[in-house]
C-alpha cells in the first residue's frame, strides 16, 4: 500500500513538476510511448493438429506510456489478452496495467519505485527482464536504488516481489527477492590509470529470496536462500576476458521430468569464462561454462518453465534465425547442470585482393557443445541431507546434450547481388529436451542459401532456400522463400516449409504462408495468412513450444 501511495505521490509531483524541478526548467517535459498488437484468427486444420479454439480469435496487445521531465520519469504499460494467442504461456488474461513505475535521479542517486527490470553481471545471479514474444516477464515490483558514490564505483540495491500472472492486471508471486550489487571500474577510480592499456572492472553480488509456503509432506524447504559471487572483466589491447562465479545455497525444487533430481539440497554453482581476441577483419572468441543445480526462482513449488525466474541460465550457442535451424532442434541449457564450450571465429578476406575480389568475403565458424557433468551419486541410505551427488568443476561425462558446428560465408558479388551460404551440423539429445522424446540423439544437417538482388534503388528481391537432412524424428525438411521489397514502405513474401521426408506419408505436409507489410516511419503493419509450423522458441534457458496454427494474423507496432 505504501508503495502505491508513494507511486501516486510521485506522479502528482510530476504533474506539478514546475515547482519541484525548477532548477531543470530548460528540460522540456516529454511523453513517449509505443504500442504493439497481434491478432490471430484461427482456422481448424486437423492435418497439422491445429485446433480452432471456441473464441476463434486471439489478440495480445501492449502499450507503454512514458513521461520524462528533467530527472524524473514515470510510466505504465497497459496489456490486454483477449483472448491470449494460442501457444502463449498460461496466466495471461484480460486487460489492465501490467507494469508501472516512477524514477528520479540526482547527483549519482537513482531511485525507482514500482516495477523495474535489471541485471547483475552476466545475469546468472539476477536477471529481471521481459520478452513479450515468448511471454516471459519476471518484472520486480518494489524498490530499486542505484548510487554512484565516487567516480568508478557503482552500487545497486533492490527489493521486491516478482510478476507471476496477469489477470486483468498484475499479479505478483509471494516470494521476496532482495539483492545488492557493486561494481568498481579501476580505470575510472584511479586517475593515474585512466589511460592505461589494461582496463579492469570488478564486481560482486548478493541475492537472497524469502518464501515460506513451499513445504511438502516429505521435505522442509529453506525459507531464506542466499546466492553470491563475483566477476571480473579485463581488456588489454585486442584481448578481452570475462569471468564470473556464482554460488547458491541449498534450494530444492521438484523435478517432474527426472525424479532423481527432485528436491536436491546440494548447493549450486556456476562458472562462466570468456576469452576473446579481436582485430580488424579477424576475431576469436572462446567460452566455457560449468553449471550445477543453478535453477533459481522465487518459489520452490512447480510452476511453468518461464515463471518467477530470478537467474538466467547462460546459453553457449548461436541463436539461429533461419527457420529450419532455429526452431526445430534448438539448444536449451539443462537446469540440473551441464558443462559447455563454444568457439567463434570470424574472418574477412580483405577486399581488393586476389582472393577477396572487389568486396572481400566474410567467413564465420562456430562450434558449440554441451555435456552432462560427471556425477558421483551418493548412497541414499547415508545421504541424510539429500545432497544426492557430487561434481567437480569442468569434469564432464561422455553424455552429450548438444553439439552445433556451423560455417557461414557471405559474399557481395557485385553492386546488385549478395550471397550468403551456411551449413550446420547438429547433434541433439532428444531425451533432455521437449521435442519428440522418441530417440536418444537426433543428427541433422542443414544447408542454407540466401540471395539478395537489388534491382534498383527502391526495389529488391530476396530468395532463401534451406534443406534439413535427418533420419530421426520427422525426417527431412525443405524450405523456400521469396521476398520482394519496395523501399521504404512495402514488402510481400511467400514461404513454404515442406516436411517431405516424414516417415508417416500423410504427414508430408506443405506449410505455405504469405506475408505482406507496410512500414511508415515508426509504424509497421503486417498481415500473414496460411499455415505456421509448430516450433520450439527459446530464450535464456527457457523454451516454449508453440503449436502449429492455420489462419490469419495481423500485427501492428508503433511508437511515438
Amino acid at each position, binding site marked *: 500500500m505504501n508503495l502505491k501511495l508513494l507511486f501516486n505521490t510521485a506522479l*502528482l509531483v510530476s*504533474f506539478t513538476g514546475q515547482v519541484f524541478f525548477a532548477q531543470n526548467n530548460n*528540460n*522540456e*517535459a516529454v511523453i*513517449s510511448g*509505443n504500442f*504493439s498488437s497481434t491478432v490471430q484468427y484461427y482456422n481448424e486444420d486437423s492435418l497439422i493438429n491445429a485446433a480452432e479454439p471456441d473464441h476463434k480469435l486471439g489478440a495480445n496487445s501492449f502499450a507503454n*506510456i512514458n513521461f*520524462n521531465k528533467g*530527472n524524473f*520519469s514515470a510510466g*505504465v504499460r497497459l496489456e490486454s489478452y483477449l483472448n491470449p494467442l494460442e501457444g502463449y504461456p498460461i496466466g495471461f488474461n484480460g486487460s*489492465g*496495467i501490467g507494469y*508501472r513505475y516512477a*524514477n*528520479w*535521479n540526482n547527483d549519482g542517486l*537513482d531511485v525507482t519505485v514500482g516495477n523495474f*527490470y*535489471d*541485471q547483475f553481471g552476466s*545475469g546468472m545471479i539476477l*536477471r529481471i527482464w521481459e520478452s513479450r514474444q515468448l511471454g516471459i516477464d519476471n518484472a520486480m515490483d518494489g524498490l530499486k536504488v542505484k548510487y554512484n558514490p565516487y567516480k568508478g564505483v*557503482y552500487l545497486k540495491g533492490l527489493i521486491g516481489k516478482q510478476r507471476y500472472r496477469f489477470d486483468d*492486471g498484475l499479479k505478483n508471486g509471494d516470494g521476496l527477492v532482495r539483492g545488492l550489487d557493486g561494481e568498481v*571500474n579501476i580505470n*575510472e577510480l584511479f586517475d593515474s590509470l585512466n589511460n592505461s592499456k589494461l*582496463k579492469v572492472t570488478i564486481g560482486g553480488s548478493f541475492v537472497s529470496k524469502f518464501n515460506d509456503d513451499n513445504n511438502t509432506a516429505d521435505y522442509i524447504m529453506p525459507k531464506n536462500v542466499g546466492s553470491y559471487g563475483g566477476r571480473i572483466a579485463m581488456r588489454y589491447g585486442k584481448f*578481452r576476458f570475462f569471468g564470473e562465479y556464482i554460488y547458491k545455497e541449498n534450494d530444492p525444487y521438484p523435478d517432474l521430468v527426472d525424479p532423481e533430481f527432485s528436491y536436491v539440497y546440494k548447493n549450486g554453482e556456476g562458472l562462466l569464462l570468456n576469452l576473446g581476441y*579481436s582485430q*580488424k*577483419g579477424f*576475431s576469436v*572468441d572462446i*567460452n566455457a561454462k560449468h553449471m550445477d543445480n543453478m535453477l533459481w526462482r522465487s518459489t520452490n513449488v512447480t510452476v511453468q518453465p518461464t515463471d518467477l525466474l530470478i537467474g538466467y541460465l*547462460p*546459453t*553457449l550457442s548461436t541463436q539461429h*534465425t533461419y527457420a529450419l535451424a532455429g526452431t526445430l532442434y534448438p539448444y536449451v541449457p539443462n537446469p540440473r547442470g551441464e558443462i559447455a564450450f563454444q568457439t*567463434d571465429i*570470424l*574472418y*574477412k578476406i580483405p577486399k581488393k585482393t586476389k582472393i577477396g575480389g572487389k568486396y572481400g568475403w566474410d567467413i564465420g565458424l562456430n562450434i558449440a557443445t554441451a555435456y552432462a557433468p560427471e556425477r558421483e551419486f551418493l548412497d541414499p541410505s547415508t545421504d541424510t541431507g539429500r545432497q544426492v551427488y557430487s561434481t567437480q568443476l569442468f569434469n564432464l561425462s561422455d553424455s552429450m546434450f548438444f553439439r552445433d558446428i556451423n560455417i557461414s560465408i557471405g559474399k557481395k558479388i557485385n553492386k546488385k547481388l549478395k550471397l550468403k551460404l551456411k551449413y550446420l551440423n547438429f547433434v541433439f539429445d532428444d531425451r533432455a529436451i521437449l521435442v519428440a522424446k522418441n530417440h536418444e540423439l537426433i543428427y541433422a544437417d542443414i544447408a542454407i542459401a540466401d540471395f*539478395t538482388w537489388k534491382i534498383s*534503388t527502391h*526495389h*529488391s528481391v530476396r530468395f532463401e532456400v534451406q534443406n534439413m537432412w535427418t533420419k530421426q524424428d520427422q525426417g527431412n525438411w525443405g524450405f523456400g522463400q521469396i521476398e520482394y*521489397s*519496395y*523501399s*521504404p514502405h512495402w514488402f510481400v513474401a511467400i514461404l513454404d516449409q515442406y516436411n517431405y521426408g516424414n516417415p508417416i506419408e500423410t504427414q508430408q505436409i506443405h506449410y505455405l504462408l504469405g506475408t505482406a507489410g507496410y*512500414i511508415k*516511419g*515508426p509504424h*509497421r503493419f503486417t498481415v500473414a495468412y496460411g499455415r505456421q509450423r509448430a516450433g520450439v522458441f527459446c530464450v535464456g534457458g527457457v523454451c516454449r513450444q508453440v503449436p502449429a496454427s492455420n489462419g490469419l494474423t495481423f500485427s501492428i507496432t*508503433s*511508437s*511515438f
Partner: protein
Amino acid sequence: MKKIITLTLALFLVGATFGQLPSNVTIKDMDGNSIDISKLNNGGKPMIISFWATWCKPCKEELNAIAEEYDDWVDETGVKLVAVSIDDVRSTGRVEPYVNQQAWDYQVLLDPNGDLKRAMNVNNVPHTFLVDGSGKIVWDHNNYAAGDEKELHEELLKITK
C-alpha cells in the same frame, strides 16, 4: 489504478513535447565505460541511433549498407552513428568481433537488458532514429529493406542544410 490512468492522461495536457533522448539511462560501451545517454552528443551535429543485434539479419544489412557510404555522410553532414546492440548475455561476446570484422567506424553501445530499448520505446529491431544537432529526434524507422538507407540520407541532408 484508475487514478494512475487519469493522471497519466492528464500529463498529455501539460503541453509536453516529443522526441528527446531519455535522461535517466546509463549503458556501457565495449570498453566497459558507462555512458549517460542524456549526455550523448555530437557537438551540435546530427546523430543516427540505430538499434541492432548480432542475430538480426536486416539490422546488420542496414548498418553494413550505411558503412559503405558512411565516410561520405560524415564529410557532408558531420553525422555520428551510434549502434546500440540489444544482444543479451547469450551473444554480447559476439558484438565486438562482428564490429571488427565489418570494420565499422560507429560508436557501439551495449544494452543487454533492454534499458535504452525500453526508454526509447523500441518494439523490435532494426529501429533507427535520427537526432538533430539540438538533441531532438526528428525521424525514425522500424524496418530495413535494401534501399531504406537512401531515405535516411535524404532526411539527414534535410536537417543539415
